[in-house]
Structures are given as C-alpha cells and as structure tokens.
C-alpha cells in the first residue's frame, strides 16, 4: 500500500492543524475503537468559513484527509462547504488506497458535524436531506465498523 505524494505532503505538513477557542461550530466523528477520530473547529463570519482547525487521531490518511478537507472549505460559504464530498477530498489527494476511503468519509462527516453544530447553536433547523447522509456503505471497512457508513 503506497500513499500518493499529496497524501504524504498533507500528512507531513498538515494544514490548519490545531484547536480553536470559542469556535462557532465543533464537530467530532469517528470512534477510537475503529482507530479514527476527527474533530473540526469552525470560525464563521458573515456566512463564510473564516477559519478552520482540526485535530485527528488516526492513520496517515486520516490526518491527510482532515488536512485537505479543512483546506478545501476555508474561505468558502457555509452552503458550499456543506457540499464537500468525500470523493472530492479523495480526488484532491490524488487518490487513496481502497481500505482508506473511509477516512475521507470521516472527513466529510466531520465537516458536516461542525456545520450542524453551528446551525444548532444559531437556532437553524437541520435539513435531513443534507445531514442525514452517510458514506452509503461504499467503503471496504464499513461493514465491520460500528459507526455510520
């Protein structure tokens, strides 16, 4: 199993790594039992993601997908960030090994969870069309994984 140069770059030099005080939205997904947990913090100003930070427990691809996902949503409108798909993250990283696709699913879910938290904090109802989704079980690991997917 080999990672792409992009994955290795984001693993070695993660973008937006860290925690955030007084975040407008925080999302944490995953489960230590499965080996991956991602936590994303958002600072939102005028409907735009002004800043984003992440913390991740997991393999190299978990770190790289979190890093890439945060980079992709930074500076975006909240509505656009909601459209971030795990597929787009995988493509931006020049691919992931099949067994690691679930990490990108986790990254997508972490972004959504942080945005859901932001909406809830601001009294906005969550659209089940957007927030009910999951990875659709298309990753190899999903079957044996207790968490969504």
């Amino acid at each position, binding site marked *: *199993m080999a990672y792409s140069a992009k994955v290795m770059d984001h693993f070695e030099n993660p973008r937006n790594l860290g925690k955030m005080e007084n975040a407008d939205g925080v999302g944490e997904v995953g489960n230590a039992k499965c*080996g991956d947990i991602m936590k994303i913090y958002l600072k939102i100003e005028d409907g735009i993601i002004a800043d984003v930070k992440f*913390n991740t*427990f997991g*393999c*190299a691809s978990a*770190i790289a997908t979190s890093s890439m996902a945060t980079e992709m949503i930074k500076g975006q409108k909240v509505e656009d960030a909601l459209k971030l798909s795990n597929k787009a993250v995988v493509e931006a990283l020049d691919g992931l090994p099949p067994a690691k696709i679930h990490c990108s699913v986790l990254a997508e879910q972490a972004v959504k969870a942080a945005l859901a938290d932001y909406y809830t904090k601001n009294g906005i109802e969550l659209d089940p069309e957007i927030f009910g989704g999951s990875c659709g079980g298309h990753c190899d690991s999903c079957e044996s994984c207790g968490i969504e997917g």
Partner: protein
Amino acid sequence: MKTVYADNAATTALCDEALEVMVECLRDNYGNASSMHHSGQAAAEVVAQAREDIAKCIGADANEIYFTSGGTESDNWAITNAARLGAKKGKKHIISTTFEHHAVLHTLMKLEKEGFEVTYLDVHEDGYVRVDELEKAIKEETCLVTIMYANNEIGTVQPVEEIGRICKEKGIYFHTDAVQAVGHLPIDVKAQNIDMLSFSAHKFHGPKGIGALYCRKGLPLIGFMQGGAQERNKRPGTTNTPAIAATAAALKKSCAEMDKNIHYVSAMRDRLIDEIVKIIPRTRVNGGRSPRLPGNVSFCFEGIEGESLLLYLDLKGICGSSGSACTSGSLDPSHVLLALGLPHEIAHGSLRLSLSEYNTNDEIDYIIEQLPLVVARLRDMSPVWEKLMKGEN
C-alpha cells in the same frame, strides 16, 4: 538521511557470509543437485553439508531436515501432517494458542472446517501460555500441540521444554513455529522433545523464500505436493542450492555468535524499553519482560494510532512496525495484542521495534531521541489524547 533498521522480526539483512556462498553457487555451482554428473554432484555435496550444518545448530540429525520455501510452508506442512496422522487414529483434537502466526492459525481454521476441534490456549496479559492449562486441555483425542517458540509481535518465549515433556509423556505430537527463535536462542530439539519445528532463513540474516521443517525420525511425514523425489521423496522441486547453502552459512554464524549477540542485543532492548517508558507517559510494554526475544521491543502509546506513528518515524529514517488496524487494512488491530486482552483503542497505538546485532547503541540513542518527539507530535493533534488529559476517559 540514514536508515535505522529496527524491523528485524519482519526480515533481516543478508549477512556477507550468506551472500558470498549464494553468489558462488549461482555463478559456479549451478548444477542440479539431483543430476548424476560431477556438476550436479558438486551441488549435492553443498546441500548435504548445509543440511548437516543446519541440523547441528538445532540438535537434529541431517536426515530430519526438510527444506521448504520458508516458515509458512513448514507450518502448513507440519500441522496438516500431524492432523492426517491423528485422523487415522480417530484423534481429531489439536491444541494451540490464540496468538500464533497466521500461517498456523489459518491452517488450523481450515482443519476446523474439516471437522477437527481446536483448543486455543489463553496467553494471558503477559503473553505466556500456562503449562497447567495445557495439561487440562489435553484429551484422549488430542493428536497435536502446536505452540510457537517465541511470538513475533511481542517477543515472549514460551515454556517449550515443559510443553515438550508433557507431550512426550502423553504421546502427543508437538510442533513449534520457531521462526523467530532459530538463530537467536539456543535450541536442542532432542533435549526439548520437539517433534516438529519450523524455521525460516530470512529471520537470521539468510535469504528469503527458504526455510526448513525439522521432523523427528520415526514420525511419518507425508508430502503434500506431487513431483520429483527431492527431499527424500517428501518435498518435490529442484533443490534450491544457493538458498540452502546461504541458510547454512547464516545459521552457522548466528549460532556461533549467539551468546555474544544475545548479550549485546538484549542490552540494547532493555535500555530502549527502560528509557522510553521513563520518558513517554502512558506507555505500555506489551508482553512480559522475561523470557523475551533478545531483539523484541513492543509498546502501546495511549492516545495515538500506530500507522501514523510508523510513518512519522519512517520520515526520520526509523523502520519499525505496528499491529494497528490501519496498517493491516482492517478495522481490527493485531490478534496478538487483542489476545493479551488489550482494548482496541490501546492496541491501535502499538509499535514494534525489533533489533538485531546489526544495530548500534548510537541507533538506540537516536530512537530514544526521536520517538518521544513523534509521539508528542501525534498526541498534540489527537482528540483522544485531549480527552485523556481532561480525564474524560
């Protein structure tokens, strides 16, 4: 960047002695050891000498050594053979452990599908089988006990001699997967009452893809492939002269220098374990400290995941391995760590560093310097560690 190779349990560097005789055989002594002419006979002589040298290293006779493609084949062969012999007498019960190598476990699973019953002995949290539990597990129908000599992930050395004595008393075949032990620990198959023993050359600075099965004289051994009459009609295929000669060269050297190596390597092992446990909080050492393979160091660091640890170490030039789920491509961490009763979330943070006499104390210093930095970096970005520190777990 320099390489610090600390993954000797996965495989080792070829020693010069093995390389030289291998090249010599490939280039000059290329005859087929089964041929009648002088070229073939020269090769046959090399093989005969190698067989003798290897046998001597483990206290066996030359005609008890059967060359194979390595540990996996030897394990498959030994276990299947004993099972067939047992079945003939209506004995279809086998005793093993929960933390064997997959070459053993998957062979046993196959036999279970064929109607054999297998008892997997607990290895407890220290990674040792208990002899009294073995005795209790033995039944009238037990035909085979297969217990590894030393575990490849956590290095614990099993009470082989006692197991051998019990099996002999009860008339049960005893096989041991000694892939991690041969060339590293003194072995005497006769004194230890071992009926069958598997080993592999690439774990003691020999080449890959070659190993042997020792099978005690008088124990019927049935070949499992059809072909020529090599290996006394038991294991067909043109004799791999270069690899066999190199195996003998590497094993002779390992055995001649064993005392020195054990002393040197286990001192590095102990220093590495002691220092890391002192420097890095919430670190566990997997497996009991003694008896332990001279080169095996196995940790679990709470709050981090093994694959990222492994790859950050690799960026520093340090080669190790991990039993984390992510390195295996499944969601379950290694069965060995789970066999110790470790919870998944702890087992994910495992790191194995396996040393050999090729490592130096400077390299150990370098690992002691780098490993805490890498663990701290990963903990700093870990939400699991954050919770641990807040006392939420």
